[in-house]
């Protein structure tokens, strides 16, 4: 049970990490990244590091996401297509 859950978390972690890099829409990338942080927070909790889980959930999933979104709204949302 525990190992299966760990496997699910790690698979989701790798999947969200790859998706966040490859997302063309920067807003989508930021949201995926916050999902990554949330899963990471769950992982910290499973590794019995509740202090880190709290930090990751508050800073990683909360504050940095908002700061990234603010930056995107202040600049441009889509990544430049190559060769155009």
């Amino acid at each position, binding site marked *: 049970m525990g190992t299966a859950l760990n496997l699910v978390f790690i698979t989701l972690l790798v999947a969200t990490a790859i998706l966040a890099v490859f997302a063309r829409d920067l807003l989508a990338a930021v949201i995926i990244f916050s999902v990554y942080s949330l899963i990471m927070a769950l992982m910290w909790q499973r590794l019995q590091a509740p202090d880190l889980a*709290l930090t990751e959930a*508050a*800073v990683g999933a*909360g504050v940095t996401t908002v700061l990234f979104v*603010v930056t995107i709204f202040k600049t441009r949302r889509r990544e430049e297509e190559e060769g155009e």
Partner: protein
Amino acid sequence: MKNLLALLFIAALAALLLYVVANMPPMGDPENPTATHVIPRYLEGAEEETHTVNVITGIILNYRGYDTMGEVTVIFTALAAALAVLGRERRGRIYAYVDRSGVPSSVIVRTMVRFLVPLIVLFSVYTILHGEISPGGGFQGGAIIGGSMIVFTTIFGLYESSRRIPQKVRFPLEGAAVMVFFLVGVLGMVGGGDFLTYAWPKAAAALHPALVTWLTVLVEIGIGLGGAMVLTSILFCMIREEEEIAVVA
């Protein structure tokens, strides 16, 4: 050709990393070098030496106090850099793009936020003050306060929230984390110990353990308030838009 070279390089790097990881001691093994030297000392001595029930807080604020002080300085430097580039918001003429959003927030959202923000702040106060007993502490609580300010700002707008926490409140508190940390460190020296040891050997023996706990809690409060205000100020200076000064004919 170039891609192939890059691929080869990455493959070699991956092979090297996997090889190193395979040779690392297994996770959670009690025979690990990390688990045989420092950790037993922390686990056995933390409560007696740092007078904090939560060993993590004892390690972060006491054993590795220098490290944490550096982190606090880093956060303050981040704020200083953001302010140097973007500038502080000016009262009265500011707004954020959320204020001018075409989708106004509904009554339900406003009511829920008004109801939830005090509860979030309450939880963060608990996290800060309970840091030396249970998981949590200054950083976490400060980040949660920052998060509640972000929620409030996105719903009620920059004008409202900068009226609630005006600059004259944030100004002195932004440096609170660094200031309190340094002050408590120096207080330790005044008390006859070393910098940042919290130890007061010259103080009355009965007062000594309680004093260490109080100083730890003081540092937690400083880090919490400072972190919260730094995050709020960074958010404000990032989302602010300034009203053009209307030319009065």
